[in-house]
């Protein structure tokens, strides 16, 4: 800054006539030939780095696939997917995945029943109604919620939520799917809230103004203009939430026990696919056994589930997108 003022007083001003930027640049250009090299080379490096995640994915899928195929040599495909009985240990081991599937789907459904309404309402409040001051207070609190380790949520579900629920649901077992489902929902709220809020606050103000200028109320603007405009981002947040719930491990392992019931009764203990993987890997499954391969089959099922979720979500968000 000082230098600039100095110039302003005209002391260096005479140099202006001599200063020929065009010539300096031409001069510099001659020594800059390596630049073309980097311009060509760097994108290739970037591509290589981007390819790492692609190849990792391919690697994981291939491993899952080969081991899963090995599993289906021992256990018929139909038996696995229609079997309502899972008894992986002992003499007459039975591998039916349905108990795990219902466990995962029910816990995810409970979690989303909590996370979607609460998260979306929070997002609407933060983006459309909250004053700058409230927002500044609320957002960090939400982020703290997102930062709590899942193991903490796990024993919170086991030692606090379950006893609390038992006080008005007498039939609730000490380990059950309801309590971890709810706690998982609480864990996902910040994710849904903050991603939906981002989507809503990036809707241009001119759209809100357009609706308000027609005499719309604030609520009408929010429901009929802002949310439809932000819907693809909102749905994306739901799907990420669902994927998170499907993949969540610790909370259900701790609070839902390991009984492999095939049931739809949320007061009972159920095992999810992830909890099953924890149990079996913890129990030293010898490589090459059916038990060992069953890990991969369950993992593959889990993977296919999340993949389908993501594809459905992309389809929905493309279909509902309002271009702006």
């Amino acid at each position, binding site marked *: *800054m000082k*230098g*600039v003022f100095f*110039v*302003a007083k005209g002391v*260096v001003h005479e*140099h*202006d006539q001599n*200063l*020929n*930027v*065009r010539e*300096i*640049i031409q001069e*510099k*250009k001659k*020594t*800059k030939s390596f630049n*073309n090299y980097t311009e060509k080379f760097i994108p290739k490096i970037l591509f290589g780095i981007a390819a790492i995640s692609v190849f990792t994915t391919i690697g994981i899928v291939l491993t899952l696939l080969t081991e899963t195929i090995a599993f289906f040599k021992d256990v018929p495909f139909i038996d696995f997917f229609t079997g309502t009985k899972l008894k992986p240990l002992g003499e007459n081991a039975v591998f039916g995945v349905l108990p795990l599937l219902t466990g995962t789907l029910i816990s995810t459904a409970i979690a989303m029943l909590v996370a979607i309404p609460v998260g979306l309402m929070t997002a609407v409040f933060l983006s459309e109604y909250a004053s700058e001051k409230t927002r500044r207070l609320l957002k960090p609190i939400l982020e703290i919620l997102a930062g709590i380790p899942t193991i903490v949520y796990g024993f919170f579900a086991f030692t606090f939520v379950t006893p609390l629920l038992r006080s008005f649901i007498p039939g609730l077992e000490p380990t059950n799917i309801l309590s971890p489902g709810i706690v998982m929902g609480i864990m996902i709220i910040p994710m849904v809230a903050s991603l939906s809020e981002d989507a809503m606050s990036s809707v241009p103000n001119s759209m809100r103004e357009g609706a308000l200028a027609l005499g719309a109320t604030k609520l009408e603007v929010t429901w009929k203009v802002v949310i439809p405009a932000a819907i693809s981002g909102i749905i994306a947040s739901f799907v990420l939430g669902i994927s998170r719930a499907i993949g969540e491990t610790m909370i259900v392992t701790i609070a839902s026990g390991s009984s492999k019931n095939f049931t739809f009764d949320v007061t009972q203990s159920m095992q999810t696919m992830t909890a099953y993987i924890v149990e079996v890997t913890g129990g030293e499954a010898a490589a090459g056994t059916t038990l060992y391969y069953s890990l991969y089959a369950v993992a593959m099922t889990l993977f296919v589930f999340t993949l389908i979720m993501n594809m459905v979500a992309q389809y929905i968000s493309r279909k509902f997108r309002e271009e702006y």
Partner: protein
Amino acid sequence: MSVVTDKSNASVKDTQNSAKEDTKKVVYETKDLNLWYGEGHALKNINLAINENEVTAIIGPSGCGKSTYIKTLNRMVELVPTVKISGEILYRGRNILEKSYQVEDLRTSVGMVFQKPNPFPKSIYDNIAYGPKIHGIRDKKILDEIVEKSLRGAAIWDDVKDRLNQNAYGLSGGQQQRVCIARALAIEPDVILMDEPTSALDPISTLKVEELVQELKKDYSIIIVTHNMQQAARISDKTAFFLNGEVIEFAETDKIFSNPSDKRTEDYITGRFG
């Protein structure tokens, strides 16, 4: 088709005539330029010769290809993926559409000012110093000089000299646009392309930019797209009238506005359409 070639012949004659008068050099020569966006034929057989140290205005109704043409002159049009170009554009005698032409070199010599002011979200100083810096000028003293010179050149120095370290977005639209002009001047280009530079500005800012263009003409060749015919009449030496991707008429601005040779030009400038 025949009309177009007639016109282009006429325009070549015009430039030859003026060349006799003041022996001005041609900086840009466009020969049989055709451009397609996908299937849409956006520019049809454009033939224009643009002189050094003159202001050349390009007028015409929306969608006539005037912005496309000016963006072709520094190959910014290539940012549209479906674009196809044929013909020649000679800049200082070299065809810029050749593959071997380094587009960065071209854009170093041919500056551009956009329709909406688009300063970087940095301080005013850094906005101006960005160009010289990427071209390897690191010396703080030289940069200071360039910044002052460019801001003076864009007639904005007095407005901003006390707040060079503030964000350029704190300025008014008109000031931002002049900062963008200063940014273009900082690397001392040869030609400055302006794509409706005043369309987002208020009348007073517009006036300032127009005065500036007159001033810059001494050192630079300026090609300006405008949808404001009065503006073209006020500031330009030559005017090209575009319609549906064709050059209908290209001549001295005085002639275009007082005695156009084509009926369509007359209709347009008298406000009968467009």
